[in-house]
């Protein structure tokens, strides 16, 4: 078979032609929509990621044109490459939905479910996954695992209890930073993300572990408990950065930049990794060139209570006559 020949695949009955070597997940993403399997560990920008969380399981009902036998078990779509004439079932197969429900329950076994406190709530992939595919209650009756809190620097907060061991941050450390200082220690149930001898992460691109983390295990310490994600307003901005592309999303609350993140696409993957200077040190509007409000999907909680105008129209604030007239009304002795 010639290399440039396209392979015909059908996913949930939708035909698509993809290049050889494409995974089922990426073929589904070329179609888009509901049939894309969810992925917690696979990250298209990180080489070697995927195959760990099993949420992207699909059923291959026909192996290929030459060997039409179905695959004996459900396969991880992020790791399985397509064959010519392959037929894949995702949401049309009850077996897949049932298995995915089980995987979500498995992922949530040790998850503390402290969403009211977690800074990731609102943009957490595990929340979305649990909402769409999970059961309402857990059958697990034992103590959830706990860890001793490890301080990994003043910029990044590690909550090991929330980790689902997707290894994305390890791949970031491996591929983006030159001196890898953190990884997975221990095995199986005892495995945990940690830095070697609790060494602080100080590489200029280490902040990207926050963006790739699908749950709230690695969060921005400078944003810790500052505000909820859905009360902040995402605005696209860029700056001339010598280290990275400098294209970011600023998360505003009023006139204050609370957080800087990379821009994420519809699958929650960053468009370009950004450096720590952009992420942690440039929190003034004057540092950035504003491009405009970021489009937020109406299904996202971040779109709640949002107005399209960049700045609310000044009413009383810029009118001295009205200010004088409302002096007593605005006066508040103490903030309680």
């Amino acid at each position, binding site marked *: 078979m010639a290399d440039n020949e396209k392979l015909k695949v059908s996913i949930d009955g939708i035909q698509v032609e993809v290049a050889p070597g494409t995974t089922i997940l990426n073929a589904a993403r070329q179609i888009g929509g509901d049939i894309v399997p969810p992925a917690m560990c696979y990250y298209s920008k990180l080489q070697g990621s995927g195959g760990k969380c099993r949420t992207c399981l699909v059923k291959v009902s026909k192996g290929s044109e030459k060997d039409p036998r179905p695959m004996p078990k459900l396969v991880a779509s992020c790791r399985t490459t397509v064959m010519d004439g392959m037929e894949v079932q995702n949401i049309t197969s009850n077996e897949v939905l049932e298995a995915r429900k089980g995987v979500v329950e498995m992922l949530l076994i040790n998850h503390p479910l402290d969403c*009211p406190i977690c800074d990731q709530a609102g943009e957490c992939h595990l929340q979305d996954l649990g909402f769409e595919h999970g059961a309402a209650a857990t059958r697990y009756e034992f103590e959830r695992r706990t860890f001793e809190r490890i301080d990994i620097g003043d910029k990044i907060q590690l909550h090991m209890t929330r980790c689902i061991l997707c290894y994305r941050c390890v791949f970031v450390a491996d591929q983006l930073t030159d001196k890898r200082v953190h990884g997975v220690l221990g095995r199986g149930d005892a495995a945990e993300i940690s830095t070697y001898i609790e060494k602080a992460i100080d590489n200029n691109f280490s902040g990207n572990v926050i963006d790739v983390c699908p749950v709230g295990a690695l969060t921005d310490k400078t944003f810790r408990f500052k505000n*909820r994600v859905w009360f902040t307003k995402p605005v696209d901005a860029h700056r001339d950065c010598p280290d990275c592309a400098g294209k970011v999303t600023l998360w505003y609350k009023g006139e204050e930049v609370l957080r800087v993140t990379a821009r994420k696409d519809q699958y929650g993957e960053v468009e370009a990794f950004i450096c720590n200077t952009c992420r942690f040190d440039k929190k003034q509007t004057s540092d950035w060139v504003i491009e405009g409000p970021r489009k937020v999907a109406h299904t996202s909680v971040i779109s709640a209570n949002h107005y399209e105008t960049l700045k609310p129209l000044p009413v009383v604030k810029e009118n001295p006559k009205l200010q004088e007239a409302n002096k007593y009304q605005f006066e508040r002795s103490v903030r309680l």
Partner: protein
Amino acid sequence: MEPLSNRKKVLEQKPMNFWERMYLPAVLKGMGVTIKHFFRKKATVSYPEVARPYSKNYRGLHSLKRDEEGRERCTACGLCALSCPAEAITMISAERKKGEEHLYREEKYAAVYEINMLRCIFCGLCEEACPKEAIYLDGPHVPADYLRKDFIYGKDKLVEERFDLHSLR
């Protein structure tokens, strides 16, 4: 003109007879109704000395609850403010320091929690949204005041009093 429907009713007005023309019996009958009410039980109470009991499911002033150990339940998760259709709730969260474990239940707490009672429509969605059972609309109605700023209720008015669980039994 021909009526459009057959529902029109023609009223007959007969001329009044002698007693009807005198009006006096009708006046006395009306006075009778009025005087009868003097001896009945009053339909009103003299508020504020006497107050009517609220119904069980009455939604009044909010209160922020404490747990059985007297710690504030609210973790400033923001779901009440998110669910609020009137956007009446604002909050600022803070991290619990060491030695404050007896004050706040969780790692995070609301340092500032304000409800604008002029905006609030007492729909009770905040109560429903709360994952920590921290807010309930179980108070009386909002008292009157003169300035708008006084209707923004802070934690001093919202957080319920500490209580001894054992004395309640």
